[in-house]
């Protein structure tokens, strides 16, 4: 049997928001986690302005839940500051998207990607 996908997952999978990445440059940071061999990989890139995230782009290799999570996340991160990013936890995404139990591990990879974005965010960026 095919796994079940919630309406939110299907929506984000079919109409992903903010797919792609920003070209490297001033005010652009990049976070990444996972690998193809693991079956799940996220690359997040964010444009930062005034200590807050102004826009996010995502790339994802993974199951529909993961692609939906990348898309969903790209909207939620806007407006967050560096500390909020580092404090981000997977549970929000789980609640919004309804990951099946056996896929929870993939959300931890997403969390890693968010934190990696936080790490990449140099304190001196305006």
């Amino acid at each position, binding site marked *: 049997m095919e796994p079940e*996908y919630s309406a939110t997952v299907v929506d984000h*999978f079919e109409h992903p928001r903010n797919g792609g990445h920003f070209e490297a440059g001033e005010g652009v940071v990049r976070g*990444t986690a996972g690998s193809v*061999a693991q*079956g799940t*990989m*996220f690359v997040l890139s964010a444009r930062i302005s005034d200590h807050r995230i102004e826009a996010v782009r995502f790339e*994802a*290799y993974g199951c529909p839940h*993961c692609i939906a999570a990348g898309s969903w996340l790209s909207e939620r991160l806007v407006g967050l500051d560096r500390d909020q990013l580092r404090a981000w936890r997977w549970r929000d995404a789980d609640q919004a998207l309804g990951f099946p139990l056996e896929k929870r591990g993939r959300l931890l990879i997403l969390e890693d990607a968010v934190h990696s974005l936080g790490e990449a965010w140099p304190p001196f960026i305006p």
Partner: protein
Amino acid sequence: MTPAKTIYLDYAATNPVDPRVAELMIECLRPEGAHGNPSSGHSFGTRARAMVEKARQQVAAAIGARPECIIWTSGATESDNLAILGVARFHADRGRHVVTSRTEHKAVIDAFKQLEKEGFEVTWLKPGADGIVRPEQVREALRPDTQLVSLMHVNNETGVIQDVAAIGAICRERGVAFHVDAAQSAGKLPINVEAMNIDLMSITAHKTYGPKGIGALYIRRRPPLGLRPLSYGGGQETGLRSGTLPTHQIVGMGAAFEIGERDREADVARVTALRERLWQGLNAIGGVELNGHPTERVAGVLNVCFHNVEGESLRFGLRELAVSSGSACSSGSDEASYVLRALGRTDQLAQSSIRFSLGRFTTEDDIGRAIAIVRREVERLRALSPVVAQSHGT
């Protein structure tokens, strides 16, 4: 998504019943139909019996067998088990070595695993990257205590054809019983059990436009081959397979095999052309590879792996297509196909493989739409992928 809008490209999982076959089955099911028990002595019974025997002749003729060598079962799973467990258990005191391959259908693999539990030693042949088991591998595996070799004619996942005639010759020479799972080849390739030196052969109706739930086992009768039944009872089918014979099902299988053999060449030519077109269309997308041997393959099956697209997303993206990854019985499960793994594919590539299987009712339009849908989804997912840049293909 309603089935009406979905394009059916899963003929290797099961076929719709051919309307000509369905008509004959429906006649049996009507009040005036042949509803007697084929084992009953009265006129209702003899009428049903005659239809059963006609179907036996039809099936036998399609595979070059004598009718008395055909026994009815509930499908290829039961036929595989009856052949493998039946021969091995019956001859267990003469030897406990048996041979098969790693890319067989689960019905064969799991029967052999059961034999392992019963103290048999199994040699699991590993096919090449093209999916083919070389006859020499079989010869080398044979031992004085080998009782049985079981190899499939056409692989259900890749469509790759084994040279069963050459393997049959080796087994016959060495006096080892040779079983062939021909679920996927009947009606698709010429089969002649005598010429191919096949001792036991499993077939099923629902892969040849007949009904689900009926199959047969060909068993060589001269010299007789001892077999232990899986179950016991009324003694139908020379005691090898007890139970009331389902006339309508058997009639359906007989007709399906007759039509399948009669129309085989035309069917195959048509399906081959459609498959060629599908392959050209998919290949043009880029970053795709064929699984299994490029030419030693049956007309209707195309198993393709898509680089840089995750498997589950690809399958979900293609849900307007009824296709499969792995075999139907285990599809949906997250595990990568053991068949593709045995051919040396990585887990990721095995999971990003799709089996497109075409058949008698596939149209040009189906193929055209399928190509467009696959292109759209693969390109869309690749555009979201973080790894496309560093890979071959696009």
